[in-house]
């Protein structure tokens, strides 16, 4: 995948894919979309870069990705716990839908990216 055409197109296309992913996440409660869908789009954008430019520069991000993933789940549970702290039920809604969308988007993005990186890492090792 070292063709110049592919590299140029990827470089030009990347911001738009990322922007589209962020749009899908942020407007999830108003238009078709949501955290999962946007997260997957973001992950595929980075996957495109990995496929075209090689995995080399992404290896060092892996520990940070793991942390981000754990933090994402923890934040989701903590938002759920807010309800208990205010004397209501678990996972009660305080207008938190956009926030939850962002957290889920982050989590899915990071999780899928980690899986892709490990799968591709195997391919390279062989």
């Amino acid at each position, binding site marked *: 995948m070292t063709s110049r055409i592919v590299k140029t197109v990827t470089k030009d296309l990347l911001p738009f894919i990322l922007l589209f992913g962020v749009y899908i996440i942020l407007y999830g409660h108003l238009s078709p979309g949501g955290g999962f869908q946007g997260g997957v789009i973001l992950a595929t954008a980075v996957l495109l870069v990995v496929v075209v430019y090689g995995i080399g520069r992404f290896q060092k991000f892996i520990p940070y990705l793991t942390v981000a993933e*754990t933090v994402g*789940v923890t934040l989701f549970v903590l938002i759920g716990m807010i309800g*208990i702290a205010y004397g*209501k039920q678990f*996972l009660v809604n305080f207008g938190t839908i956009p926030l939850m969308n962002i957290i889920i988007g982050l989590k899915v993005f990071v999780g899928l990216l980690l899986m892709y990186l490990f799968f591709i890492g195997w391919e390279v090792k062989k």
Partner: protein
Amino acid sequence: MIEHLPIFLLITPLISGLIVTLISISSKTEKIQKIITFISLSLPFLYLTLLFQELSDGVIEYNIGGWTKPYAITLVVDDLAFALLVITSIVTFLSFIYSLKCMRETGGNFCFFYLLMTTGLYGIFLTGDIFNLYVFFELTVISSYILITFGDKRTSLMASFKYLIMGSIASFFFLLAIGLLYIKTGLLNIEYLSMNIHQIDCQTQMVIFSLFLVALGIKAAIIPFHVWLVSAHSTAPSPVSAVLSGITVKTGVYIFIRIFTLGCTLQNLNETLIALGALTALGGVTGALVEWDIKRLLAYHTISQMGFIIVGIGTFSDIGITGGIYHIVNHAVFKGLLFLCAGSIIYRTGTSDIREHGIGRTMPITLITYIIAALAISGITPFNGAVSKSLIEASVYNYPIIRLILVFASIGTVAHFSKIFYYSFIKTQKHRDPLRYQEVPFSMLIPMVILAFLCILLGIIPNIWLDNFILPATSSIIGGYNVIQFKLFDALLILKEMIIVALGIILLKVIIVRSKDIDRLRTFISKFNLNICIFLMAITLVFVLVIFSLSN
């Protein structure tokens, strides 16, 4: 704060799992992770004690998100769920203590997946929503797939893969059934579904129940769908095997009890379940005939005991369901104990082949706990297996053939456990290595001793347990019960048990002499691979549908 107890039960292992991961990223010390896991697995005992006081006022319900009941996801703690939650917390806690010594090299990762599996199990027993059941079942089994690969390197991967394929097929059948229920009733709450199920037309009911039968049959390892269980339970690490065999298999039966006993108007559903259960009870014992691997033997016995439970529940009578629920609890205790014993023997000798064990009397506490568990699973009087087995046999009083099959299964059970006893404990190896033959560490002994104590306690005062735990659980399913007083030392029962033990030992003799026929049986059993098993599953589905359509 007291009304949030059900959700705390679920959140505690979950949050500690997250903390364990965060710690494992920053540092490599396993001590803190193990302490956190220990605390979070012991906290449920506190919650359950508090819940037990609440439970006397009636069923505890917790609507998540604050929406009203049949529409929100509801956590329901009734007596049945409570009994299973208690046994889950006991087995997971004791298995974790056991794993401290024998799972040393895997460390923090093991703690994380173990905690998430526990979360999933609590989620299954707490939830009152049928789709949520699917989600938490997937959480449990996905953690189990990974936990299984911690075991023996080569075979555990294949076992995990088989379990994954069968588990996914079960989930898909379950989802199809959920879809049909949803389109016909427009609800997902289990309690309201059961109230509205008689409104569905008869033919759709047949399809729904045969789909559920396949889905839950795979999860409960009924015989044509059992192929994943033996490899998965035998190659997993011993503490994980104890939880898988003690609790995870029971989730299938738990959903059986919740769904099948409720408002179903189909003819012949009872007979189908009882026949499948009897086949499972006999088939599990037959499969164990050819095995020399201690954990595979125990796994086949799990199948056989699941057959007993299915027979009890399939009668839909109060005595049968009581026996079934009691046997669920008992089986979790003694099968957990047996797997821990097997783990101890493997820990010292390094092999799971019983012909190479021959530890003699060098491990006295393991020996005593093994004898207690073996007597309990064979159904000998002062131990807990006797109570539930005689209740189940009493419930199929009208089906003499089924009773005969259950007696045969009991004889086979005695034979196999005396086989393990003879080869592992009585026979002694010639070349003894003194280091290998000594008692296991203290932290591995404690869970075994506690479980052995529970075996005796559940057997020696059965009426207290029946009155306070099991019969209320039955009444929460079928809405009422007759008081069952179990007579502990019945002369006729003891005579029957002695005959069964005698026949079992004769059977063992026959097995050892006729080894050629056993080899033929082994080639026959080895033909049941994954593909054929799934094909048999499809045939069973057709068969059940045809039976239903002929009789309704």
